[in-house]
């Protein structure tokens, strides 16, 4: 197996960072709860690309096993998110996050 060059690693890291930033911007700007949750999922995928690129760079499996755990935890969070979205939609018939801002101060 060929070693990965530093230049190749930086490309993957740049991709990971860009995905992470897209997710972060989406999290800040979107108002629909499902879109907000998808934004956090995009951030997770950016992290996963980082981990896999580093795993290939260091030629060990730690990063890959980390990604498997990351995906299963993300799935657990997704199920919780959908349950929460259904619960909130039944209450207010809207998924706009601004409808849920009664507490102030």
């Amino acid at each position: 197996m060929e070693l990965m060059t530093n230049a190749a690693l930086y490309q993957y890291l740049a991709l990971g960072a860009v995905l992470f930033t897209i997710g972060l911007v989406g999290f800040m700007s979107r108002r629909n709860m499902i879109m907000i949750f998808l934004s956090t999922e995009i951030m997770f995928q950016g992290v996963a690309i980082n981990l896999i690129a580093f795993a290939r760079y260091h030629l060990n499996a730690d990063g890959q096993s980390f990604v498997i755990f990351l995906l299963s935890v993300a799935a657990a969070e997704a199920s919780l998110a959908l349950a929460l979205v259904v619960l909130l939609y039944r209450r207010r018939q809207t998924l706009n996050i601004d409808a849920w801002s009664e507490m102030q101060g």
Partner: protein
Amino acid sequence: MAIELIPEIILLITAVAALLLGLAARDSVRRLVQWVSLIGLAAALAAGLGVGVPADAMGHISPLAKYMTLLTCASGILLVLNAWGMPFGNDPAQCDSHFRGETFAMMLVSLAGLSMMAKVDNLIWLFLALELVSIPTYVLVAAGRGQIASQEAGVKYFFLGALSVAIFLFGFSYLYGFAGSTNFVAIHRAFLVAQGTSGLPFVAVIGLLMVILGVSYKIAAVPLHYYAPDVYQGAATPVTSFLSFVPKAAGFVAIIVVLNLTGWNLSRGAANAVPALLAVMAVLTMTIGNVFALLQRNIKRMLAYSSVAHSGYILAALVAGPDLIHTHVITGDGITAAVFYLAAYGIMTIGVFAVLTYLQGKTDAAEDLDDIAGIASEHRLAAACMAICLFSLIGMPGTVGFLGKLFIVQADFVSGHEVLAVIVVINAAIAAAYYLRIVAAMYIRESWTPFVVRKSPALQFAGAICAALVIFFGIAPTLLINRSGDSASNILPTASAQMPKPAAHSAVVITPKSAPKLMARTRAATM
């Protein structure tokens, strides 16, 4: 079998039992869940006491891990007593008053995660333990009460939580990239090598900064603190007391564990950014927490900002860092001060919430200052317990809160952070104003309405125990000092206990062709 994980195994088995028992058709059977939870926590506490700190290299439980297990189980018992009978039948915000077993099951799972936090020796485990603490708390907040405010709190807590997980995972990925392994011993070695040669590379520093920023959500510190008042107000009050201690303790242990990897040797070059970030976070967190708490009338929101402020104090202790030579509070060790304060804060905040729940108020607890006006004339004991815990939060001499603040200020002075120490003292003085407003409302003001109190022996017991512990550890703190001093000693990951097998990481994918090249590459220096 992993003997050091017995307390967590007991907690998880109890959680499963509680979940199944909570599905029973009869309400009286479902209520057994509370007793089952208490028994499980007591058994885990006994197991935690029994699991010693072995001197040999076979079982590698660190003193910090033992301390956290004991603290988790002890606080867990108080938190279960706080939630006794929840959801409360007389809460008008409650759509149905059927007893729910899953509340206690979720608490137990979260506590098992907290107990596991300091036992991990791998970044993947640390991530899983942090998530084990947080995911049940999302359920607790959203489902604790059938009220719109509670669901609003749940959605805010959940989405910000997912964001914070992504941020600290990004930091973890860079730490892994820096060290080439997720094992703590290997990462620690990579840090030592880098510090010995050229100083830390940027990838490691960025990793550390992202981890601290992400975890700041768990401890409700400044960049991600603004959810705290809404979530604390919206959640059911026993859940609020849970939130004010368990995720916060988990976050601080995570920061300590991650910074242990660096050997706390962060004064050179780019690594300087880490203590600088901690110091800025500490100052902003305690100041913003205290100033905003002054503006609140709702007691739960006030306590939320107070919880933010106390995170700032503990961060100030972490800025001081460990005194690697002496490691004792008397000599001004920052880690000892931090874990001591964590226990102290847990006791006093759980005590305050126990009394608030006991007093009931209009919904499920006394939330407004008017709800507790003049309460001291009728309910002397409850008011006294509350006042003791509040005086401890202020830091009056004779209480455990005073000693906690003293150790933090001392650690900052010894380590040469005099300005930070002065800011802590000024903040403690500001904080006195709003805590005293609660005390004044209880003792000086006339009562408006006839008081309704919850006749719950569990709540009375929890409040009395907390007040007694505040006084006891304030006067005779030796036990707590020794325990926290032990837990700060020997904090670095030692190669003897958890040495990975040689080449265990690379054996899977290395082909003979690439092996010589791999040997030539030093892991950290190429970054």
